[in-house]
């Protein structure tokens, strides 16, 4: 916890400092940060795309240091196979696990609180097998491990039980899949935190925009990797009909989850401001949803 907070504070301070200096100094302004805000990678191999996306935004070593405990949080919400595009692609998850371990992580944990039976979700999604093979500790949610977390400044939720393993991790890698959703319209990066909520989380749909922005104020991923290898264009978030699945062979990575989600919306012909939670998060200064102000690097892997 302390490690992550420290890291975030330091990063924020450094970024603020850099920005301040850069805006003053014409020479520094001419030398932008070495990596783009968003990397958008297209290619046939999801694992390669993931590696290319990470290296475009600075490489895994930018985010993970030696000896750290890392949580890779995919969406394993449904009893569906990878072809049905309801869960994060297993190759993408496995690639991130492998990269985190290569960067020196002590442990990489993978978990989610599914909507369907967890055993079926973990197996049928292919994520348990792939992540374990890559060296991750894959575990089911243990109900005894939720801890009430205060959300100071929360608009829709002031406190909620969140999963301890996530709270105690040194680094968090958010790896959602892009798909449609009944209330939220789309489920992308910000919505992925529903998977670490305890209790009767279905209630947050009553004010999904503010609730997800509230969560984003207390959960700070080092990087968000949006899996758009296959996207679900209708009947999400669960799908089940291959006709609703569109193969995009795309991975989007960035440190700003709001920018990632805003870009993710465009995959469905929507725009970030049209999603309540993106708009809410942007309004609270949690990230940049205006893609004109986001430096995007497109890579062909």
């Amino acid at each position: 916890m302390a490690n992550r907070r420290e890291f975030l504070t330091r990063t924020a301070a450094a970024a603020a400092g850099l920005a301040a200096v850069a805006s003053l100094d014409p020479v520094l302004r001419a030398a932008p940060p070495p990596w783009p805000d968003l990397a958008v990678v297209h290619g046939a191999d999801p694992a390669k795309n993931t590696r290319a996306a990470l290296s475009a935004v600075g490489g895994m070593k930018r985010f993970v240091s030696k000896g750290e405990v890392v949580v890779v949080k995919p969406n394993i919400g449904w009893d569906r196979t990878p072809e049905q595009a309801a869960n994060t692609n297993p190759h993408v998850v496995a690639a991130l696990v492998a990269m985190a371990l290569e960067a020196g992580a002590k442990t990489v944990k993978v978990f989610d609180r599914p909507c369907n039976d967890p055993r079926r979700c973990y197996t049928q999604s292919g994520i348990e097998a792939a992540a374990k093979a890559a060296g991750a500790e894959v575990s089911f949610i243990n109900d005894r491990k939720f801890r009430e977390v205060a959300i100071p400044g929360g608009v829709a939720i002031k406190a909620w039980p969140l999963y301890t393993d996530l709270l105690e991790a040194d680094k968090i890698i958010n790896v959602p899949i892009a798909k449609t959703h009944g209330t939220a319209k789309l489920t992308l990066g910000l919505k992925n935190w529903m998977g670490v909520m305890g209790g009767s989380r279905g209630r947050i749909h009553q004010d999904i925009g503010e609730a997800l922005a509230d969560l984003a104020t207390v959960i700070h991923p080092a990087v968000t990797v949006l899996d758009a290898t296959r996207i679900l264009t209708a009947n999400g978030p669960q799908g089940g009909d291959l006709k609703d699945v569109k193969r995009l062979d795309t991975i989007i990575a960035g440190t700003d989850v709001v920018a990632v989600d805003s870009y993710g919306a465009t995959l469905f012909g929507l725009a970030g401001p049209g999603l309540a939670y993106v708009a809410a998060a942007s309004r609270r200064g949690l990230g940049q949803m205006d893609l004109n102000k986001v430096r995007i690097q497109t890579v062909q892997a």
Partner: protein
Amino acid sequence: MTAPEAEARAPKRAGGPRARTPGIVWARRATQTGFLLLFLFLFLQTEQRGADSLGYPVKLFLDFDPLLLFSSLLSAHAVPAALWLSLLLIPVTLVLGRVFCGWACPLGTLNHLAGSLRRWPAKPRTRGWFRVKYLLLIGLLAAALFSAQLTGLFDPLSLLVRSLALGAYPALNVALNGLLDLAYGLKVNWAPALGDALLKAFSATLLAFRQPHFRQGFLITAILLAILGLNFIERRFWCRYLCPLGALLGLFARFGLLKRRVSEECTSCALCDHACQGSAGPGSTQGWKASECFMCMSCEASCPGGSGGFGFGLSPSPEPADVGRRRAVLAAFSGAAAVAILRAAPGPGAGRPAPLLIRPPGALREPDFLERCVRCGECMKVCTTGGLQPTLLEAGLEGIWTPVLVPRIGYCEYNCTLCGQVCPTGAIQKLPAEQKRKVRIGLATIDKSRCLPYAHATPCIVCQEVCPTPVKAIWFERAAVLARSGAAVEVKQPRVDLDLCIGCGICEAKCPVLDQPAITVSSLGESRDPDHQLLLSQ
């Protein structure tokens, strides 16, 4: 203990020191242990692991139960292929007698163990009520002939699976989870590590993935405990006097080739008679009852002189117990009459289909289902969400302890087909996944007075989100409703598509209106019953 008592208890042995336990008894003990462990192992494997099938033949013991075969043939005139395996037990019994009871039956082994817990007097009293089990068998088979399958209530294997699954195992899990709560709750910084270590150890062995809870678990466990308790009155009381499978095997064992022979050197000390688990009278060649002998070889172990033994021979033993023709006829009549009396009551829906009688997917039409279901509890044990529960009176008294889905406890997992896979009698058909996903077990109905978007101008989409059909059976009607302030609020009000809803109940299970969900499933429209339909098109 007074001196005369002590004297009475001390076995009087001609040879002085206690005879050595013969190898055959050790072999029997090892076999019993092996079968019991196999039974328990398969029991523990009767659980969702994430794949589409279990990987173990978890209903193996039931497949080898000829009582289920014969009674199902009488009641339903059809059985799944695997149940024919049980016929193998007949030739085995015709050669070796009730060796199944003494060497293999897990309930028999538990009874044997329970009986060993008590210290018995040298001459324990035996009541000789052997005929009761034959009368019970006759009654059950007569009921089956008139299409009521009640055998499973008394069949030892169904009874044991059911009692363990619905009572003992959930209780064990309560205890294990209590220990885990204790460990995780310790006010020390190594509590989580201790909890994790225990959880890992328990999960790898005995702990269920989620705490099972079953209605009537108490009653069902109490019956098992009572059966085990009877062993304190007489050793293997159940096996001697009550077990209908034992009775069925006894009918064949009468012609068994392996027979007890007592030589002329026998001093008639009667030690073997007192040691006999079955009270089968091994003390004399003439008095030995082949149909009551479990072949446990306790007589061999107790004999000080080695004057008894077993050998193969052809002559059939005397009639199995003194059932008597009148009693047999009365038992048959009672079984048949019981069916009529049970069915004289109005059905559980009082003339209409019972709304809460949501049967598992693949369950046959109700009368056909009741002809087959032996209430072994396998489907309830394996149910992924724990939603399959034993009925009490929801299916009428005749249908007691048959499975019913209670969505509030657990919904039917869309891609899961395990209940059909473990059903030993085909009451729940084994369906391929793509077929199972199309089976309607009921229909969801929305209670507009409790549903947030209808009653409270508040957005909510949980039922639609979790609805598993590829084209969702819940769709939204956009409606402008007034909030108290007078402001018009646009909400999406859920509607159920009657053609698409399969009644799985996940909407009811996940509805955020927790205590009394705003969407509930009833059995209306279930595919198994063409008369229980709502729509003209179905």
